[in-house]
């Protein structure tokens, strides 16, 4: 990506794949980082947009989601902001615990935390910032900090 990218997307879950594809098309990285982009970043951004539209904006098509993407010094950062009242990310239970693994929801935030190097929410809980570091080599690397 040669410049910062800002998108404002109306709430419609059918638009998520296209928006993510567009962001991915603007990201430039060497072959060694291809999997980190195509798996880690794609999944993280998709889940952040899904959460923003479904839970943040409550599927309200009159509300928008703003995405800001910055790539600098081997670091890819995406901020996703919705117009909802926010939520407490610590309230989401671990979906991999035996009592939760057969639940049909609750894996989005977990995947973001596993696949990105940093996942931070603002105080209100309606804006999440995802950071993926690319300088440390290719291949899959998990274990995010939230």
């Amino acid at each position, binding site marked *: 990506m040669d410049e910062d990218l800002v998108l404002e997307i109306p709430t419609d879950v059918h638009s*998520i794949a296209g928006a993510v594809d567009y962001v991915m098309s603007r990201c430039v990285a060497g072959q060694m980082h291809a999997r980190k982009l195509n798996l880690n970043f794609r999944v993280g951004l998709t889940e952040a947009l899904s959460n923003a539209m479904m839970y943040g904006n409550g599927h309200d098509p009159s509300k928008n989601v703003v995405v800001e993407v910055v790539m600098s010094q081997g670091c890819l950062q995406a901020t996703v902001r919705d117009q909802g009242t926010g939520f407490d990310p610590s309230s989401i239970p671990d979906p991999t615990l035996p009592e939760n693994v057969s639940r049909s929801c609750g894996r989005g935030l977990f*995947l973001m935390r596993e696949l990105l190097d940093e996942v931070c929410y603002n105080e209100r809980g309606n804006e999440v910032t995802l950071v993926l570091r690319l300088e440390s080599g290719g291949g899959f690397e998990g274990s995010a900090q939230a």
Partner: protein
Amino acid sequence: MSFQVSKVNDVTLIEVEGQLIVGNRQELKQGVLDKLEGGDLKFVIDFANTGYIDSSGLGVLVSLSKKIREQGGELRLSSLNEDLRTLFELTKLDTLFRIADDKDQALEGF
């Protein structure tokens, strides 16, 4: 995303083409539920032509597996690519599903 449904002996084989994500998960869910209501009990969903499944898609598979088991049936998955395997392993859903390398292996002995 689109999917093709066929019958191999008494097993319903669903071959998914494209991403299984929040915007289209209900189509697959309804397609499988229609077959379940029609009396089918053995299902294989094949992802040989699927690049990506998001958490909503994973949730639909969990939900379908539960409903099929409640009727005494079973849902098996097949042909997950390396990225999809990673997602199933991270979420521990590989412990919930029988996952075959390909559809033939999934159908074997079902």
